[in-house]
């Protein structure tokens, strides 16, 4: 094994999808290769064809997809033209797949151990008993604690991170030469993401397994890959080592992608606050929220939010960060009075509204509006954009038909959407445009406070950057106050003035964003910061901001 063997060679691959409006060419003339012991990252935005490329390598394309041209050579076998029977012999044995979303990629009605052992049984590598033992061993190698217990459990009894480890065990149990990992961690929290990727590195380094890593996250690619392939609109626009691609990007697209990627060194977007001692738009004191647990799991209560206090001065942005289950969304719901606090106070504009009901509560709603995470599901698909934006106006009986139409046009202009979209439906808009519609809707009744619940998590990085810019512009223009909920610290650093870090429902740290990020006082904050992709010590993103404003203010770590 002196010279590294070539595992995978993709040459001039073209894949198209049949649609009612003709063929869509998702992948055009893509060539790439993976050698033994090498990790190759394919990076790009949604629709760049990166996932289609990955699916083609294991021939798990959607039914409407067709390989038009090109060859996929896996250790001398032609995958592109293989028969179903030949493919069965290749999948699992020569190439393993780690799918995108661990929460839905395991069969919910089969035990973990059986699902891992199945690979060995299919390929006749072990009998029932030995396959069971090897499955437990594979789970152990994948870093799952107590693999004997886990093997007898069902997927729903495991967390997302644990399920992804199970899927890694499935992919690696038959010791394949190549691993295809399609966004293996995009559905997981940052700290879990780092553990999983670290573990994948270790496992593949030991065995010399080649990895084709598909990711939309440049940080992940920079940290993990030996070579990076950048894809855009179905084509490879740039390829090379991380230093070549990220250090001195040649292509405009790569530069744009890099500039848009939130990192700890990118330019701040949050406008300079008007006055630090402005009156509080929102203040919460000692908020507590208990949820009763089902009796089947022993009863009792779960304290989702535990003694949370913070103050958001008018015209500023306060971010609440934390991982899933940290209580950040519940806190937002309490602040919006969408849920009843078990204890504590909510003050809006200085008035205690903790127990406001009826019409007073309705009036209060007008002062607080929300923008949700997923613009694909938070807009009624049957309504036109105009109807969506003017709904709060109609609900609060603001103005007449003509003035509402005028306000809608004004709002569209404010969020930089062309006036022509007013009659379109959400399905005809892109994700970024939809989120602009959601923001316009939130602003329609001129609220004092807008709660932004992960407003950019569902969007591509370049679109993220545009939306964050828009939010910052709106704040300096309208003086609106933001409560920004996010798990993404890089984004938080860009938009927030102050930050509250939540862990298990408790505030572990709070204060000025620059201060907290530069000198985290709590171990958990430091851990969250370290887990952000693109901050791996051995390979700093030297000129990540080369394409943007060129400055790198603060946050030097």
């Amino acid at each position, binding site marked *: 094994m002196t010279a590294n063997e070539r595992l995978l060679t993709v040459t001039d691959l073209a894949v198209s*999808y049949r649609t009612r409006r003709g063929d869509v060419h998702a992948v055009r003339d893509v060539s790439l290769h993976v050698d033994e012991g090498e990790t190759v990252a394919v990076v790009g935005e949604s629709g760049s*064809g990166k996932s289609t490329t990955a699916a083609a390598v294991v021939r798990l394309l959607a039914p409407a997809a067709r390989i038009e041209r090109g060859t996929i050579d896996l250790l001398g076998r032609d995958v592109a033209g293989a028969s179903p029977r030949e493919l069965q*012999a290749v999948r699992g044995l020569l190439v393993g797949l780690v799918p995108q979303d661990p*929460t839905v990629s395991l*069969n919910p009605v089969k035990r973990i151990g059986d699902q891992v052992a199945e690979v060995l049984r299919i390929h006749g590598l072990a009998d029932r008993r030995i396959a069971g033992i090897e499955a437990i061993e594979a789970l152990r190698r994948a870093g799952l604690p107590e693999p004997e217990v886990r093997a007898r459990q*069902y997927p729903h009894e495991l967390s997302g991170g644990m399920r992804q480890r199970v899927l890694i065990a499935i992919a690696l149990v038959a010791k394949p030469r190549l691993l295809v990992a399609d966004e293996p961690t995009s559905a997981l929290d940052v700290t879990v993401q780092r553990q999983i990727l670290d573990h994948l590195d270790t496992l593949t380094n030991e065995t010399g397994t080649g990895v084709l890593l598909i990711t939309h996250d440049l940080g992940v690619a920079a940290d993990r890959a030996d070579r990076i392939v950048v894809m855009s609109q179905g084509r490879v626009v740039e390829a090379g080592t991380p230093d070549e691609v990220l250090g001195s990007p040649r292509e405009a697209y790569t530069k744009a992608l890099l500039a848009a990627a939130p990192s700890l060194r990118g330019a701040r977007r949050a406008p300079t606050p008007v006055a630090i001692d402005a009156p509080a738009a929102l203040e919460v004191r000692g908020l507590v929220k208990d949820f009763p647990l089902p009796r089947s799991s022993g009863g009792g209560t779960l304290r989702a939010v535990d003694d949370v206090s913070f103050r958001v001065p008018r015209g500023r942005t306060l971010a609440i960060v934390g991982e899933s289950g940290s209580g950040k969304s519940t806190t937002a719901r309490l602040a919006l009075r969408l849920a009843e606090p078990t204890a504590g106070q909510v003050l809006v504009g200085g008035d205690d509204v903790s127990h406001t009901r009826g019409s007073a509560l309705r009036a209060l709603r007008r002062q607080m509006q929300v923008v949700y995470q997923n613009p694909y599901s938070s807009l009624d698909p049957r309504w036109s954009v105009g109807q969506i934006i003017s709904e709060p106006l109609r609900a609060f009986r603001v103005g007449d038909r003509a003035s509402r139409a005028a306000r809608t046009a004004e709002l569209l202009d404010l969020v930089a959407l062309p006036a022509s979209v007013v009659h379109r439906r959400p399905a005809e808009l892109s994700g970024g445009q939809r989120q602009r519609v959601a923001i316009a809707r939130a602003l329609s009744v001129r609220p004092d406070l807008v709660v932004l619940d992960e407003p950019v998590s569902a969007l591509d990085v370049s679109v993220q950057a545009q939306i964050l810019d828009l939010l910052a512009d709106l704040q300096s223009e309208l003086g609106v106050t933001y409560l920004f909920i996010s798990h993404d610290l890089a984004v938080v650093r860009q938009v927030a003035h102050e930050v509250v870090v939540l862990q298990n429902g408790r505030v572990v740290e709070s204060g000025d964003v620059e201060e907290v990020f530069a000198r985290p006082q709590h171990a958990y904050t430091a851990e969250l910061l370290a887990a952000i992709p693109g901050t791996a010590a051995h390979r700093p993103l030297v000129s990540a901001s080369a394409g943007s404003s060129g400055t790198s203010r603060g946050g030097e770590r």
Partner: protein
Amino acid sequence: MTRYLARRLLLALGVLWAAYTVTFLILFALPGDPVSIMYGGDSSDITPEQLDALRAQYGLDQPLPVQYVTQLGHALQGDLGNSVVNGQPVTRLIADALPPTAQIAGSALVLAILVGGGLAVVATATRSRRLSGFLLSLPPLGVAIPSFWFGLTLVQWFSFEIPLFPALGNQGFASVVLPAITLALPTSALIAQMLSRSLLHTLREPYVDTALAKGAGRTRVHLRHALRNAALPALTVTGLVIGGLLSGAVVTETVFSRAGLGRLTATSVAAQDIPVVQGVVLVAATVYVLVNLLIDIIYPLLDPRIVTGARRRVAPPTTPTARPASVPAPDRVAVPAGGSR
């Protein structure tokens, strides 16, 4: 498990009681009472005084709540009263009618599950688009065909043209075949429709891709991974159609002139034989409740996610949980904008 069962059982009893009460009230609200049905009409050989005496004898002169409580008390002791047409105990009439109906309904159910299930599996597993399309067009047809027409056609062909089975009557196994097929037709169509839909949906689930990535073949993916997941909604529907089998028996037994619960229902409704109708409703409700109880018991065996209270979590997860499932993965499969699947 015992607590889960106890709760289910209690609910089942509640349903039975509700069914009894509602039938009682509806039948009471109908014009005419059993006595005037028995002796009434235009025949004038019974004086109104005698009718009143009879009403008093049956307790029909009592106010509604009293009648209700007395009858419910009797029903609880297993006495459903007597037929007002022929004076026989309702329980006996039902006990006689139940076995022949159970025969055809049971055979029909087995047939429906085999044919419907088989059709769904073959239709979704085959590589041939033409075969799959043809098979998937059958269930709507099966639901649309009126069962009395289908029954008569069967009789025409397999009793008169080719005398394989008797056209009517209750004699032996041969007489079960044609009614069972007639009864199975709409039921199997429903099961096939539900299961094939469910299978097609399940086959698009990401865990099916995981199974394929393991190197599993089509058959294995179908039978070991998809079928068990897809069977759950089909199971619910099966529970519902068993209730439908009973009403189907009314038509089928009439067409084939078979004695049974269906015929008993038809005749007693026509004769306004209130106690018998009420007894039949109670039997139907009991069957329905028992079937659904059975399905509630089977469910957790098929799907471990349904917690019955007996299953404790072996060990809680130790790592933080994944973000909620509603979080969209940035690009699931990179179908470009406007791509259709």
